[in-house]
């Protein structure tokens, strides 16, 4: 429960949200079907629906990362099962099905040097996206362990491993049972400087493995990189890793629950990477009680080991703001990370509609956080007509003076079928100046682009979706992650591979806004490590603001017309100093009487024009 803020009970929490009016009052009771709802299914030949998005490339899984006997050929699998059943009826011993669902699932993405790194339960693949045409496979690495959440920093690639089958040597055999020194659950570090000889250089064992992790560069020492590790799985045996023990803090103050791992990596000696702290970020800030996000101990039903919110699923850091947003099972939290080894909780949020706080994304200014709710864990079809529109959705929260406040929900605004696993999942910002826009994956619900510039009224501005992998039965598939990188959206499809999509202009997104976003080029992008987006002073950026001010009617038509003319001239390399000076002054004056986002847009526009004038 929320426990440190004003909400003392779920009833109070609901009251606060209800009186906030936005979170529930404006939600429809149910979504209407649309063009995405009844698409024909298939693995690589499913019907598609696209709105304001264009699929440029669909890259099927490479050799070694596709198993025709596995999940993704459900028909073939069903036939094999039927054959086995028939054999049994004849009194014969049926052959064992060679079948491991999820074993070759594509998962999360990271980006560096124009390359796309695609995590996989069985390893990772790296594609070169700098070539003309479709990205080309540049490296395949097999190292099983799931789920394969990836991050990149320079020549180092970091991979999360949580499964019991993980092995130090990237194999899968010879380490069974309860305690085994060969078992690996934690974060692997690979050196990928040479694509002809990738090497594992370190493997940092953790108590609960690694479900996701987040890179946090040291604020001043470029040779130090921190990793915030989120383990969601069970605590391993102390005989396997001596720092580990389970249980509730009142019986076992050393319990591995109720913490995250802070790992320190010296980039000059990555093989020495080690856990340096396991901070108690859920502790009560007044009493220090480790299980601080729980206040229910007086009801007499608690057994000696009552479970509580005791892990984060994912953490997103924004180092320039010294902030992190944690999606931590039963709560969303905000952390002060100015001392990276000792993050301090500033605020926590609870909401009765949120089943499992799963991931977090800041807007560029850091005063809004989009939290996702992975209701049902991602393997269930939770976007059907009778599913509540506020469950398995995004919760959009504002940040004011270090306090999180829930404002609204956004869920895939359509109906999906019973064989499409669907719930809110990973996404990242699209760098359109003057607006908050996020692209996001919804498993087999496809990809949406959401405008949350007004955190109380988020809405959809683009989508892409395919029919189910298998219309007959639910096959776990769809987009694990959809992220923006250097002008394109990359979607990691669990079963189908890697997709590349491009924004198409519409009433919701002008050609200038798309062009301004596509001009933002970054070398290294790990979506859970947010850096402030900046735009060069360019006519497309000025036009983006003008397009937005036209939509909001936030600028006098005469000034807007003069501004467009001046920007067109600037684009042709002609800047009239006198015209530009007057315009800059007029727009700055308009900014003084404007409020909210229009104030920010007018201020930014006047600054862009001033820079154009200065040449």
């Amino acid at each position, binding site marked *: 429960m929320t426990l440190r803020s004003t909400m003392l009970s779920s009833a109070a929490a609901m009251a606060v949200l209800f009186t906030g009016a936005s979170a529930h009052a404006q939600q429809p009771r149910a979504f209407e079907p649309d063009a995405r709802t009844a698409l024909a299914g298939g693995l690589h030949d499913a019907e598609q629906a696209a709105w304001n998005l264009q699929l440029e490339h669909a890259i099927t899984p490479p050799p070694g990362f596709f198993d025709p006997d596995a999940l993704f050929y459900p028909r073939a699998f069903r036939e094999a099962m039927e054959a086995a059943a028939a054999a049994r009826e004849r009194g014969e011993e049926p052959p064992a099905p060679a079948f*491991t669902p999820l074993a070759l699932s594509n998962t999360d993405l990271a980006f560096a040097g124009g390359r796309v790194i695609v995590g996989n339960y069985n390893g990772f693949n790296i594609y070169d996206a700098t070539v003309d045409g479709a990205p080309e496979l540049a490296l395949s690495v097999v190292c099983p362990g799931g789920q394969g959440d990836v991050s990149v920093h320079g020549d180092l690639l970091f991979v999360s491993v949580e499964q019991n089958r993980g092995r130090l040597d990237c194999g899968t055999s010879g380490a069974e049972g309860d305690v085994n020194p060969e078992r690996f659950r934690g974060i692997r570090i690979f050196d990928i400087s040479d694509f002809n000889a990738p090497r594992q250089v370190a493997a940092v064992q953790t108590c609960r493995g690694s479900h996701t992790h987040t890179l946090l560069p040291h604020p001043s020492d470029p040779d130090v990189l921190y990793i915030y590790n989120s383990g969601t*799985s069970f605590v391993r045996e102390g005989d396997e890793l001596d720092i580990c023990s389970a249980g509730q803090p009142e019986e076992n103050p050393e319990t591995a629950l109720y913490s995250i791992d802070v790992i320190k990596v010296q980039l000059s000696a990555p093989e020495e990477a080690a856990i340096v702290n396991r901070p108690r970020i859920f502790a009560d800030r007044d009493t220090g009680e480790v299980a601080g996000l729980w206040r229910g101990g007086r009801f007499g*039903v608690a057994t000696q080991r009552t479970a509580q919110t005791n892990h984060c699923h994912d953490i997103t850091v924004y180092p320039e703001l010294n902030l992190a947003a944690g999606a931590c099972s039963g709560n969303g939290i905000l952390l002060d990370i100015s001392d990276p080894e000792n993050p301090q909780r500033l605020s926590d949020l609870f909401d009765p509609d949120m089943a499992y706080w799963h991931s977090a994304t800041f807007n560029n200014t850091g005063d809004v956080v989009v939290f996702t709710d992975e209701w049902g864990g991602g393997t269930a079809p939770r976007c059907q007509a009778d599913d509540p529109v506020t469950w398995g959705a995004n919760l959009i929260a504002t940040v004011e003076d270090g306090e999180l406040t829930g404002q609204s929900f956004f869920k895939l605004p359509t109906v999906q079928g019973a064989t499409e696993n669907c719930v809110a999942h990973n996404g990242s910002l699209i760098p359109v100046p003057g607006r908050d826009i996020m692209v996001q994956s919804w498993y087999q619900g496809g990809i949406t682009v959401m405008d949350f510039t007004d955190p109380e009224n988020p809405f959809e501005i683009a989508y892409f979706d395919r029919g189910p992998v298998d219309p007959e039965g639910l096959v776990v598939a769809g987009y694990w992650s959809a992220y923006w990188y250097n002008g394109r959206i990359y979607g990691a499809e669990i079963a189908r591979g890697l997709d590349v999509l491009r924004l198409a202009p519409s009433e919701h997104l002008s050609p200038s806004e798309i062009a301004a976003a596509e001009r933002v080029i970054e070398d290294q992008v790990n979506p859970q490590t947010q850096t402030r987006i900046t735009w060069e002073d360019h006519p497309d950026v000025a036009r983006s603001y003008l397009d937005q001010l036209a939509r909001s009617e936030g600028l006098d038509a005469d000034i807007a017309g003069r501004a467009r003319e001046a920007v067109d001239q600037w684009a042709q390399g002609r800047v009239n100093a006198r015209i530009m000076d007057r315009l800059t002054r007029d727009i700055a004056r308009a900014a003084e009487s404007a409020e909210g986002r229009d104030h920010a847009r007018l201020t930014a526009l006047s600054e862009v024009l001033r820079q154009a004038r200065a040449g």
Partner: protein
Amino acid sequence: MVRLLLLLAGVAAVCAPSEATPIFQPGAPGQPSREIAADEAVALSRSSFVEADVIFMQHMIVHHAQAVEMVALLETRGAHDGVRRLGERIASNQAAEMEMMRTWLEQRGQAADDPNLSHGHHHGAHAGLEDHTDHAAHHGHDGHGARHSNHSDHAGHGSHPAHGAHGGAGEHAHHGHQTPAPVAPDPGDTPLMPGMLSPNQMAALAAAYGSEFDRLFLEGMIVHHQGALDMVDDLIARPGSAQDPQLSDFLSHVVSDQSAEILRMQSLLSDV
């Protein structure tokens, strides 16, 4: 609003992967990598499951079914909106997980029911599942199909010896008094498995109304959820268990979801 809609039948842009890129399998930290063939890469992705995994799934289906039954009672007897909403969510989650577990068992040629589990006093295990897709294709399980036979010893597991870990949870009477086990226990006081409510507790729940029902429901469901966490602990302590990726994922979700729901129920208890 006018929506520009592009409907593409088939795929215009599927690209075949390059044949030339080698596949590397790294060694342990500090060791060199080796090149492997695609079929070996696929073989490494495959994993096995053991008897204990199957029994865990079979029992968790039964365990989840009781939560669905409890929520069915809530719909006609409860008073508190927050409890009702949470109940709906729990039932929805548990029904979906039951579906997933049945599929998991079916896909591995295993029966959805543990033949060693007594169904004598377990009524309504499948309540609320009339809308189930057809899972009738269960064939009598031969005890071997597709299993690793290196671990066939689960003697006693089918009959559930009381594990120390269940002390408290399993025999927790939710009227606040603990009855020590008498010499000849009333079968009505014996839950089908630890972490489930006994028939007598279910009867007490079914007899309650309003805020009294809400309180009993929350207390019972907390015990019930705690039982699921104990079952997970019990499974991972067994040799070779929890290697199957889908099962491993499922365990993580059970732990996180049930923990979050317990947290929520603890807080709701202060409201009813």
